[in-house]
């Protein structure tokens, strides 16, 4: 029996906690118990809740947890400030 749609969100988040950054294809390959539709729905819901962010990488898309996204943003801001002060 297929797991339910709600379980797909947990599975996506768990995988992102483990790998931090994932290509969409890797997520699909890494979660064979879920259908594409279940995983896409999970991605839609998680991005709506601001828990993950999607970035285009060439011909595909990359997923990142939002906390990492914020950390990257702060790091960039810090670098810009350092450059500005030099």
């Amino acid at each position, binding site marked *: 029996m*297929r797991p*339910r*749609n709600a379980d797909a969100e947990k599975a996506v988040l768990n995988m992102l906690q483990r790998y931090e950054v994932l290509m*969409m*294809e890797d997520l*699909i390959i890494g979660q064979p118990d879920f*259908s*594409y*539709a*279940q995983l*896409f*729905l999970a*991605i*839609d819901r998680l*991005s*709506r809740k601001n828990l993950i962010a*999607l*970035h*285009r990488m060439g*011909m*595909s*898309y990359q997923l990142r947890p939002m906390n990492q996204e914020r950390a990257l943003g702060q790091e960039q801001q810090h670098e810009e400030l350092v450059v500005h002060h030099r």
Partner: protein
Amino acid sequence: MIGYGKLVLVVDEVESERQETAFLLKQAGFTVVQACDGLEALSEMQQQHFDAVVTDFQMPYLNGLELLAESRAIWADIPVIIVSTAIWDMSETATANGVFAWILKSSSPGVLLSILAIAVEQGVERESHHAMEQVGAH
């Protein structure tokens, strides 16, 4: 461009929303054909093969799920992505009926484009698999 050379059918009875989706897809390199309801969509699908279909759920004549079922008789392999305003409960039914993806209408553009990127890639893999089978058969 993720959509370069790929043909997508966008189905929505609300012209402004259809145009908005079409614009987004064209910017990503897709060639877009538009239909204002399920019947027009089926007529388009009878005339040519699409790499993917992006359809609204609530439409006159045929809703998104009915269009999915009817389209299977014409092109069984076409990935159908249904966009809906809110009916989350239907997503389980849609999954069971073979929808490629079910997302909300207000999803971020990245969600729809990332799904289409996978749909298109799968189509290319399927075509090359068919070609290999045909070469092997001769």
